């Protein structure tokens, strides 16, 4: 099989994980770092080769990109039809994801050589990175929804491990736990969804599931439950898993906290790759969504739209550089979800789908860049807060420029990548429903505003006094920045409509000036507003914040979602369910078992006077015993 080697794209990082994990503490830190980096480097090369081969070679048959099984083995069989296969499924989105993941991962690997240098647990860090890369790659190439679930979980756990990398920091531990549990909760839905899906369709296999003419889709909409078909329900449940991973409201709460992890991890996992897994999941099942459960897709769109707005508003108020980026990520993922949600299936109807994937791709570039840049800044000033920064452009020129490029890209200023992808999304939204368009339009403006608020706050504004003079990051860190900056600047020109489409067939897009111009306009407006507020520093923002009062405070406190969760978990689950159960178990269930013993003892004690030591009493009992026997057996019971 010509794509057989693709399995190694995933396996090489795994090998790196095993080597660095098992033997890491025995070797010099840098060696394990290099092992990891070289490993992912090879994987990156292989995925480029595969991408080239797929997109420009054998992938396209009769103008349609095929689903190609590069490798497949049976891993666990449940019944004749249901089995978990492990394998590599190549189609446009998985190949694209391979490229994205390996690229960003490679950048992060290289970057971390500098960023993490001297950290205790360097080898462990690379081991976890390897594990993550392996899991993420395995996820995207999954041939089977269960394989995807498996890697989905593995991604989750590597995220958990990496967030909790600084394990003696309580906040990191708490954040990792939160991330895992929230996504786990979402995965519960995913799993039930998978089971329901398999119950209806009798298969786990993606090829069978997503075949538009396949039995799975055509017979899908059977019995209805609460107004929606069972198929829709199962897809909603599956989407719940995706929403968890992709931090859709209200399952988003783990993502900002996840910033406790090392910054390169945030770049890799919580910006470029893992968090878009939900988007990828919906995209993977898109034919099923689009053809047999449009209601499900509607929900995806609503969730996407709401989250993007919600997160953007919060992002405007935050002070922690990484948290701003985290909310920004949420917001951008909302975009992608919305795009999927408003998309149709096949040809030009699939504009949203294409746009979503496109944005996923470009977003990976500039968001990774933003995070890595933020990492460089934090590395320099040893703080996460904008308030501790200012005027850094003089000290860190490379970081400054690359960061600016990323900001322009995310704000949607042409010709940077973000403009093109975001524009397609706006078009798709516009074609579907005006409301979606308006929301996303506002979000575009907000995005530009908060990104430049950040930009000015860090690189301009009042210069702070620094304990150690900040200096530019080492080459191992700046090189990835530069590479990603190039990516952010140029990837917008990739013709996605020719490559990654909902049905594998290329289509043409028309440039909509009526949408592009206003969107550029609002972006510029946002930038200008930010410039006015933050370039020199002014008291206007505070005044506005004060003017907004409660609304500002609510946004600043992230709309109290965390508090709600706290209430539900601590007060309700712990106190009202778990504690009573523990009590019930000890007192009632166990108590009744002990009670039997107690009663036995009591009866025993109560009976002791029967054995009084009085011979005549014994005789009395004996005689009455006989007489009772006689009475009952001769007269009462003798039939």
């Amino acid at each position: 099989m010509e794509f057989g080697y693709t399995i190694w794209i995933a396996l090489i990082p795994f090998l790196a994980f095993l080597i660095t994990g098992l033997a890491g503490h025995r070797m010099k830190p840098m060696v394990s770092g290099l092992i990891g980096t070289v490993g992912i480097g090879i994987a990156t090369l292989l995925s480029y080769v595969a991408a080239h081969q797929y997109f420009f070679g054998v992938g396209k048959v009769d103008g349609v990109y095929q689903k190609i099984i590069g490798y497949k083995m049976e891993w666990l069989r449940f019944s004749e039809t249901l089995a978990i296969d492990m394998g590599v499924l190549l189609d446009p989105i998985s190949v694209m994801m391979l490229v994205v993941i390996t690229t960003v991962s490679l950048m992060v690997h290289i970057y971390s050589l500098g960023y993490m240098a001297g950290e205790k647990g360097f080898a462990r860090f690379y081991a976890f990175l390897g594990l993550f890369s392996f899991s993420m790659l395995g996820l995207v190439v999954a041939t089977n929804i269960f394989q995807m679930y498996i890697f989905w979980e593995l991604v989750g756990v590597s995220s958990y491990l990496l967030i909790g990398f600084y394990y003696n920091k309580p906040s990191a531990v708490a954040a990792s736990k939160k991330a895992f549990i929230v996504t786990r909760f979402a995965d519960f839905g995913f799993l039930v969804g998978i089971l329901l899906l398999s119950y209806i369709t009798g298969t786990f296999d993606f090829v069978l599931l997503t075949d538009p003419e396949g039995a799975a889709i055509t017979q899908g909409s059977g019995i209805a439950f609460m107004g929606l078909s069972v198929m829709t329900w199962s897809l909603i449940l599956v989407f719940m898993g995706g929403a968890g991973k992709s931090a859709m409201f209200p399952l988003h709460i783990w993502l900002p906290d996840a910033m406790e992890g090392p910054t390169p991890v945030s770049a890799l996992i919580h910006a470029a790759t893992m968090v878009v897994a939900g988007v990828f999941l919906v995209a993977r099942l898109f034919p099923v969504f689009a053809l047999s459960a449009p209601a499900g897709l509607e929900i995806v769109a609503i969730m996407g739209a709401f989250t993007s707005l919600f997160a953007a508003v919060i992002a405007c108020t935050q002070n922690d550089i990484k948290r701003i980026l985290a909310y920004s990520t949420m917001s951008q993922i909302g975009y992608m979800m919305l795009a999927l949600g408003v998309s149709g299936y096949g040809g030009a109807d699939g504009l949203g789908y294409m746009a979503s994937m496109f944005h996923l791709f470009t977003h990976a570039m500039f968001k990774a860049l933003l995070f890595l840049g933020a990492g460089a800044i934090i590395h320099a000033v040893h703080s996460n807060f904008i308030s501790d920064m200012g005027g850094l452009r003089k000290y860190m020129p490379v970081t400054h420029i690359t960061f600016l490029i990323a900001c322009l890209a995310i704000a949607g200023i042409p010709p940077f990548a973000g403009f093109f992808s975001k524009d397609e999304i706006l078009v798709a939204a516009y074609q579907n429903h005006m409301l979606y368009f308006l929301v996303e339009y506002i979000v575009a403006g907000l995005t530009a505003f908060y990104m430049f608020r950040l930009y000015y706050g860090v690189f301009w504004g009042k210069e702070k006094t620094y304990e150690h003079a900040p200096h530019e990051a080492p080459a191992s860190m700046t090189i990835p920045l530069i590479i990603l900056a190039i990516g952010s600047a140029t990837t917008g020109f990739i013709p996605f409509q020719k490559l990654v489409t909902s049905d594998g067939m290329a289509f043409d897009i028309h440039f909509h000036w009526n949408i592009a111009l206003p969107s550029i306009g609002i972006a510029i407006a946002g930038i200008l507003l930010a410039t006015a507020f933050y370039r020199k520093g002014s008291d206007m923002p505070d005044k506005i914040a004060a003017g907004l009062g409660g609304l500002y405070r609510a946004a600043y406190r992230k709309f109290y979602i965390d508090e709600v969760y706290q209430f539900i978990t601590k007060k309700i689950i712990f106190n009202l369910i778990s504690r009573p159960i523990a009590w019930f178990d000890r007192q009632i269930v166990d108590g009744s078992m002990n009670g039997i013993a107690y009663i036995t003892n009591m009866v025993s004690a109560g009976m002791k006077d029967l054995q009084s030591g009085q011979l005549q009493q014994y005789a009395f009992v004996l005689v009455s015993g006989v007489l009772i026997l006689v009475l009952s057996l001769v007269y009462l019971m003798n039939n």
Partner: protein
Amino acid sequence: MSIPFTHFLVLSTLLFFIGIYGFLTRKNLITMLMSAELILNAVNINFVVFNKYLYPDQLHGHFFTLFIIGIAAAEAAVAIAIIINLYRNFSTMDVEEIDQLKH
């Protein structure tokens, strides 16, 4: 035979339960023993009467009675030995006081 056969049985049964009553109420050990003798005597009457009136061609009941009398003697001997031992060593004759062993 003019005495109703069952009257013997009434006699013996009453004697039997009088004996039991004595056994259950008398506090002195020796009187308890006497009550036991009453019980045996009642049984003896039973055996004899059955033998005489119902199955006179064999002497089963007759012999049974003989042996019961013999055993009663042996029983009484041992019981009295124990009672005397109790009296001599522990100076008690009252069954209600003999209750070291209980519960």
